Structure formats: structure tokens, C-alpha cells
């Protein structure tokens, strides 16, 4: 088991009180697993991915544990996290365009990063060239400034940098959202290739784009209002979703799954609840067409089939 998150609670501190952005999130990530993380804006996706590598100053770790390869990850202790970053847990930032220092040539920037991680640049120079070639870049890019590269090239450079030290866990936060469709595809394929070559052990792929994640991920986890709604193999989430939220989310997609057409696409009426004072019980209750009395009680996340987890009272029936 690569990553095990148990009952993780991370709140944002504000003047009006705590925003319960992550409120008891539990899941496991297996070796070699690529997990897509989906959900509406504000459901806690980015908070979760940030929590795994670094809490920012307003975020507070309230409870729960994160274990990576059997070791506890001290997510609340910024100093103790430093040795883990890039070596064990790495991140591909959302906007590769701004992730590279515009005044540094890429090779120099990589060297500086490696030295700060205690790695001699010469030791990984060959590997670096090989990986650049793998993603279709000429090693000459090392001698270029970031503005001399296109957006897709920068994204690939950033991917190579993030995975250069073979981290156990890679967090890809909306890496494709700023790219055009064909570049998205090549980026996604490269990520899968990195996993297949064991440059990274496992990956959390945060995205709004369920159709993209369906093509590359092994499992999909759907979050709603700071909690896990459903986690299951990608196929199961698209073809046989159990949680009513997942069902509505999938039915709101134009492309994925069966090619039913003609009918109007349905959105999900309403908006997610505010997390400053989250409602009691199931947080999807107010928008859920299947809600009944028991939903006033928080449904537990249960394994309804092997590898298929959902948090809804109705799934057990």
C-alpha cells in the first residue's frame, strides 16, 4: 500500500471561523495506482492535494493521519516535510507556464533544484537527458530560457523535473487544464508512461475533466463538500456509479460512457453547501433526489464491492 489517508481533517482558518475544507477524508492508494480526483469546484480536491505536500499558512491540520509506504507523513510540520518533498512526494503545479523562473535557463534551474535536494547534478544528468527525450524534448532545451518554449513543452519539462528523483507519490494538480486538447492527451500519456516505467510509484491526478481521467486513471475518487463520496475503479465510476452525486455528475458529461444521445444533458441543480458551517448528516442531502430521513445521519464510507467504496445509505440496499 503506497498511500493511506485516514480520517484527514484540514480546516482553513478565517475570521468567521473554520472552513471545513477536508472533513474526514479516508482512502488508500495502491502501488502503481493512478487515481483521478474529481468533483465540483470547492469540494476539497485542491485542499487534499496541497495537504499531501504542504499546508499553506491558513490551513490547519485538525486530525487524521497520512501514511506513505508505511511511514507517517508529518503534514503539519513544514520542516519535517522538507526531506520528503521531490524525493518521496512530488507535485506537478497547475500552471507550468509560471512554474519556471523566467530568468534562469532550464538546465541551471534544474541543477539548483537538485543541489537543494542534496543530489549532485552530474549523477542524474544522463537520466535527465533520457527522460527529456522520452517526452519528446531535445536535451537542448536545458540551454534555453523558459520563454523560448511553448506551453506544452514547458509542461513536459515540469513533468520531467517533478519526477526526476523517482518519487513514491506524484500529485498532478489540474495539469491539463491550461492546455489544448491534443497536448492534454500527450501529457496524460506521458504520465501513464512514467508510471509504467516506475519513475513514479503512484499518482493523484486532480481534474475537472472526468472524460480525460477515465482514459488514463485506474481509479476515480469523487469528492463532495470536503468528504469522499465514492471511490472505485474508473470503469465502475462511469458505468455503474452508486452514489447519487456521482450518478448526476456522470450524467452531466457529454462524452463518457454509453453513446446515448438525443436527450438533453442534465446539470445538477443547486450548489454545494458552504463549508463554514457544514450541514449535519449527508452533505449532499439538499440536492439529492433520493434523500430520505436517514440522511440526517452521516453515512459511512463503506466498501460495497471489492475496491468500490461509497458513502450513501442507499447503496447498501
Amino acid at each position: 500500500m503506497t498511500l493511506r489517508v485516514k480520517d484527514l481533517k484540514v480546516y482553513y482558518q478565517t475570521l468567521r471561523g473554520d472552513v471545513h475544507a477536508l472533513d474526514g477524508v479516508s482512502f488508500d492508494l495502491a502501488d502503481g495506482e493512478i487515481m483521478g480526483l474529481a468533483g465540483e469546484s470547492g469540494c476539497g480536491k485542491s485542499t487534499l492535494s496541497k495537504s499531501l505536500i504542504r499546508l499553506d499558512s491558513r490551513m490547519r491540520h485538525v486530525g487524521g493521519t497520512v501514511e506513505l509506504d508505511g511511514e507517517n507523513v508529518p503534514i503539519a510540520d513544514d520542516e519535517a516535510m522538507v526531506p520528503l518533498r521531490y524525493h518521496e512526494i512530488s507535485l506537478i503545479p497547475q500552471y507550468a507556464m509560471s512554474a519556471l523562473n523566467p530568468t534562469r535557463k532550464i538546465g541551471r534551474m534544474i541543477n539548483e533544484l537538485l543541489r537543494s535536494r542534496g543530489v549532485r547534478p552530474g549523477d542524474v544528468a544522463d537520466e535527465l537527458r533520457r527522460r527529456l527525450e522520452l517526452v519528446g524534448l531535445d536535451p537542448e532545451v536545458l540551454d534555453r530560457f523558459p520563454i523560448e518554449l511553448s506551453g506544452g513543452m514547458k509542461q513536459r519539462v515540469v513533468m520531467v523535473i517533478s519526477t526526476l528523483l523517482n518519487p513514491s507519490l506524484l500529485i498532478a494538480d489540474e495539469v491539463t487544464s491550461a492546455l489544448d486538447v491534443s497536448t492534454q492527451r500527450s501529457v496524460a500519456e506521458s504520465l501513464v508512461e512514467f508510471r509504467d516505467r516506475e519513475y513514479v510509484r503512484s499518482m493523484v491526478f486532480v481534474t475537472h475533466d472526468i472524460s480525460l481521467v477515465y482514459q488514463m486513471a485506474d481509479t476515480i475518487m469523487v469528492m463532495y463538500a470536503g468528504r469522499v463520496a465514492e471511490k472505485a475503479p474508473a470503469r465502475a465510476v462511469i458505468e455503474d456509479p452508486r452514489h447519487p452525486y456521482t450518478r448526476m455528475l456522470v450524467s452531466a458529461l457529454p462524452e463518457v460512457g454509453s453513446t446515448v444521445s438525443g436527450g438533453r444533458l442534465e446539470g445538477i441543480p443547486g450548489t454545494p453547501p458552504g463549508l463554514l458551517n457544514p450541514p449535519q448528516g449527508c452533505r449532499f442531502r439538499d440536492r439529492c433526489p433520493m434523500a430520505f430521513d436517514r440522511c440526517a445521519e452521516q453515512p459511512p464510507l463503506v466498501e460495497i464491492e471489492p475496491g468500490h467504496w461509497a458513502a450513501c445509505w442507499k447503496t447498501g440496499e
Partner: protein
Amino acid sequence: MTDVAGAPGADSAAPAPEPAAERRRSETLHFARRNPKLLIGSGIVLTLLLIGLIGPFFIDHDPNEYVGPQSQPPNGEYWLGTTSFGQDIWAQFVHGLRSTFLIGVFGGGVAFVIGTAVGFLAGYKGGWVDEVLNMITNVVLVLPALVVLIVAVAYLDARGVLVQGVFIGLTSWPWAARAVRSQTLSLATRDFVDLARLSGRRTWRIITAEVAPNMSSYLVMTFILLFGGSILIAAGLDFIGLGPTNGVSLGLMLENAVAWSALQLGLWWWFIPPGLGITVIVGSLYILNVGLDEVFNPKLREL
């Protein structure tokens, strides 16, 4: 991992991938040589600097000595003429240039070091560090700098150029600190700074490697403005009679010219050289800065 066929440099003694420092230097030179603003600005500044540095060695008398006929217009012997006391204006100008550059370097240097250090720390660290530093900056900013300078300088018995420079530096850094702080604030939120922070590098390393290079032209401009500002403040102090005792400076020359009615007597060769000297130095520094920006900022480079 060396079993991949044809992997470049797989078994050669790993050449450090530091991408060609040589190329970088020649690239900068390539653009520097083609930038008229840089060439003109640095040409003028360097010429004046050279005159200030070397000139005094060719003058065998004290600049304030009465050496020649009085109120002579420029001629072959006294290149810039003489004052109404018979002092050699060229000698004064050359010595004055030297002390003017000294004032600029010291005053501007002191102000630059304090201002950028305060600005970077306040902008990058934020929180209470920012609060405290910003408060100090604002306090110094609202001090009437010229009055403080006048009082401080008036109390010193022997006033040298260096002391004057340090005092000017100590009072003129706040706006530089504020400017650097605001630039740092916006740069510190960029992803690449954030990623550098993620790698646990030390604060000063991040500031010097990630933040400062992105505002290098801004920093150079700050220094040049502080340099020019110090020269102007020094000229102002000199002009009201608080210049270096027994020294020579362009500002003192202006003071003397006004005090002895050079304007009314039509002795233009007395006040034009120092006035023009100050203007040309500060002006060409600005042009130089624009040129530097175009050379070092890859986005502004034109092939």
C-alpha cells in the same frame, strides 16, 4: 541505467550539464554591443568617471588655489576659464566630478543596501516581519530628510565626502524599500518561488536566486535613481553651505558661483560646467539603465 543504447553521454565522464556559461556571456555581449542606449549612456558615464579619476593627477595645484588671472573666459591655458578670484575652474570641475561620484556611490550604496534588504525581507517574509519593517520604513519616510541632514551635517566639525554620503544614504532608503517590497510581494506569489520554497531552500537563497533576478533591472534602476538622488541631495546641501569643508564638489562650485554673483556678472563658464556635469551624469545614468534592461531581460531583446 546505462544500458539504453545510444543514450547520449552514457559512459563518458558525465559532463556537468551546466549549460555553457561561455555562451551566456557571449550572448549578453552580443546584445550589449548592439544597444545604442547602453553604449551612449555607459560611454558618457565612463568618460566622466575617467575624467574624475585620472584628471586630478594632471593638475599640479590645489583646485581652490588662486593661480591665474581673474574672471578669464575659457582659453588655452585655463580650459574652463577662471573664477573671479583666479581659481582654475577645470581643476575644480575635475576634483568636483571625483567627489560627486564618491557621494553617489556611498550615498546610493548605503541607501541601496538598506533599502533592498528591508524591502526583500518585508515582502518575502510577510507577517510580523513585514509589519515591523514597514513601520520603520514609514517612520523614516515621514522624517523631513533634508532638515535632519542639515542638523546632522551642521553638527559635524570636519565634514568629509564619505560622511556626507553615509548620512544621505541613511535618510534616503525608505522609498527604495517600499518599491522593492511591493515588487517582492507580487513575485513571491509566483509559482516558481512557491516551488523553490517547497524544496526547503534558505530564504536568502530564494531571494537571490528566484526573486532578485526577476527584478534585476528594477534593482539596477533603484540603485541608479538612488545614485542620482544622492548626487542631487549632496548638491543641495553643498549649495546651502553644508558641503565638505575644504573640499571641492560640483555643488560647492555652484554655491560659490551664486555667492559671488557669477550669474549677474555673466561668468557663464563658472556655473555651467558644474550644473551641466550633474545633469549629464544623472541623465546618462537613466539612459544606461534603460539599455541594461533591454540587454538583460530576455523578453525585451531584439535580434
